[in-house]
C-alpha cells in the first residue's frame, strides 16, 4: 500500500461537552506558525465534526484537546469512526487534563495505556507546550 502523502494539515478542537478552548487556540497558532493548515473547531466538538473536518482538509492528524476530566470517556470510539470514514491511518493525539480522578492523572503510563488501547497514537499531559506538540507531530510525520 502506498503511503499517503503528508500535506501538513491538522484538525484541532476540544471534544465532548468541554468548553475550554484556550489550549486548542494556542495550539492552532503554533501549528499555523509552523506552516500547517489548521481546521480549528473551537470547543464542545462532537466526534463526527472532527472527522468531517479531517476529510475536508485531508488532515494528517486530529489533535483532541480535553481539559475537564472526561476526555477518556469522550474519546472512546473516535478511532472506529475514523476507520469507518476511511481515515484508518490518521494520527490521533489527545492532550490536556484527560481524566477526572487524580489517581489516574498521577499515573500517566496508565493514561497512555488506555488511550493506546482505544486507538490513539499519543497522549500528552497538560504540561506539554504547543511547541513540543508541533515538534512531536513533525517527527511522527517524518518531516523533521
Amino acid at each position, binding site marked *: 500500500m502506498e503511503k499517503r502523502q503528508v500535506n501538513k494539515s491538522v484538525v484541532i478542537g476540544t471534544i465532548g461537552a468541554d468548553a475550554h*478552548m*484556550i489550549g486548542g487556540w494556542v495550539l492552532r497558532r503554533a501549528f499555523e506558525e509552523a506552516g500547517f493548515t489548521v481546521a480549528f473547531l*473551537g470547543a464542545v466538538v462532537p466526534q463526527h465534526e472532527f472527522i468531517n473536518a479531517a476529510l475536508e482538509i485531508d488532515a494528517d492528524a486530529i489533535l483532541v484537546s480535553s481539559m475537564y476530566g472526561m476526555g477518556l*470517556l469522550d474519546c472512546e470510539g473516535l478511532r472506529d469512526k475514523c476507520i469507518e470514514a476511511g481515515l484508518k491511518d490518521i494520527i490521533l493525539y489527545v492532550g490536556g487534563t484527560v481524566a477526572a480522578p*487524580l489517581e489516574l492523572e498521577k499515573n500517566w503510563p496508565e493514561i497512555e495505556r488506555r488511550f493506546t488501547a482505544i486507538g490513539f497514537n499519543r497522549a500528552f499531559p497538560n504540561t506539554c507546550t504547543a511547541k513540543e506538540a508541533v515538534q512531536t507531530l513533525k517527527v511522527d510525520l517524518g518531516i523533521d
Partner: protein
Amino acid sequence: MNYTIRNKRLSDDEFFKIRKEEVLPMWETGKQVENLDECIAAAKELSQVSLGAQGKRAALKLKDAKEKGTHVLIPQFGRALTEYMVDGLSYVEEHSELAPNGFWLIYSDSYTRKLNFKKAAEGIERSRQEGMSMLNGWPIVNFGVEEARRVMQATTVPLSFNSTDEDGRLASEIALAAGFDACYSRSLQEVIAHCKNIPLDEEIRINQYEQRLAGIYTENGVPICPWNPSNLTGYDSPGYRSFVCVSESLLAAEQGVKHQFIEHGQNMNMIQDIAMIRVTEKLCYEYCERFGYTDVNFYTGGFPFLGAWPPRAEEANAMIAWNAVITMMGGFPGVILKCQDEAFATPTKESMAMSVRLAHHLVTLMGTQKIADSEKLRLEEEMIEAEVRALMEKCLEAGDGDMAVGLCMGVDAGWIDTMLTPWKYNKGNVTVMRDAESAVRYYDSGNIPLPEEVKEYHRQKLSEREKKAGQLNFEMAVQDLQFASILKKK
C-alpha cells in the same frame, strides 16, 4: 433584528406552564419535584438544621459576614457518586475549619450541564465499575431529590449548587427542593463561558425561569442566594466582567431574586481586581435602584484565577494564597477556593481540605486588614466604572430601557465583545493583554464603546510594559494566557 425576549417577570401561568412542559419532563427524576409547595417545605426543614443563627442558608452566612467584615470560605466539590459526595464533604468539614462560617460550591458533571443525562448515567455506571469518579462532578439530575437530600444532610454548612451551562433548570429544581442554593443568575456570562450555539435571547429566557424559581422559594420563606458570577473566559477586561454582572443583576432582580452573590474571576492584579468588584457592587445597587428593585442584597466575592494553573503543589499554593489575599484585602466576604489539583483533575477531598486550612489561616493572620484608599485605586475604579456605564447606557438606549433586549443587540452588533470564547455569536474583535503590573488592559478594544479617556488610560498602561519589554505584539497576548501555569524547565 427582532427579539421576543423582554426583561419582564414571568407570570405564575407562564412559569408553571414552562415547568410542566419543558422542565420536569427533561428526565425521569423531574416527577419527584412536581409538588412545589412540598419541595419548599422540605427545603425549609432541611436548611434550618443549623450550626448557628444563619442555618444552612448561604444568603444569611454572607449577610452576617458582610456586616461583620469577615470572610466566608467557599470550597468546591463534585464527584460521580453520592457516596463520594457524602464522604468528601464530611472529610473536609472534619479536617478543616470550614464550619461554621463557610459553605460549599457543588458541581455537577459536564454531561449533566449539557442535559445529556444518558451519558451521565453511563458515567455513573462506569465510575462504579472502575471504583473511581469518572465524571467531573455529581450528576444531580440522574440521582434525583432524595439523593440530593442525603448530601444536604451530610454537611453542616450550606450547599450552593453551580447551575451552569445552557440550561440548569431541572438541576436547580432538584437542588432547591433538597435545601441547596442554586439558580445562578447567568445569561451572557454563561454563553461566553460554556456554550457554543445557543442564542443569547434563548439563554436569557431559560435563565428567567431559574431566577423566578429562586424568587418563588424566597417569597415563601426560603431565602435563595443565586450566584451572579462573572467568570467568563478567564481573559476578559475587568470592565467587561463588571458590566456582565451589573447587567445580569437587573434580569435577576426583575424575577424576584432578593439576594445575589456577585462574584468575579480575579485577574490577579490586586488593585484592579478590587476596583472591579467594588465598582460592580456599587453599580448593581445603583442600577437596581434606578429600576425600582430596592430590596435586593448584594454580597461580593472573589473567584480564583480562571486561566491555566501550574502543575505543582507549591505554585498552586501560591495562587490559592494570592487570590485569597486579594479577595480579603478587598473586604469581600466570599472567598472561593480552588486547590492544588486544579491543573490535574477534579478536586480531591484531601487537597480541598488543605486549601481551606491555608485560607482559614490567612483569615487568622490578616484579621480585618483591608486595602487602604488611594489615588491609584480610585483611578482604577473610575476607569472601570466609566467602561461599565458606557456599556450599560448603550444597552439601555438600544433596548429602549430593556436590558434583555439591549444585551442581545449589543452582542449582535459587536459593541459587547470579548477576546476568546467557544460561543459563536461573540465577535472576538477585542484583544486584552497584561500591562507592566499584570493588570489586564485592552490591546485592541474592537467596537466596544470605550470612553476616550479609558482608551487612553489603557494605552498608557500598556506603554509602560512596552518600555520594559519592547514592542507589544499578539504573541505576548498569547504568552499572557499561560503566564501563571508554565513553569520553566531546569
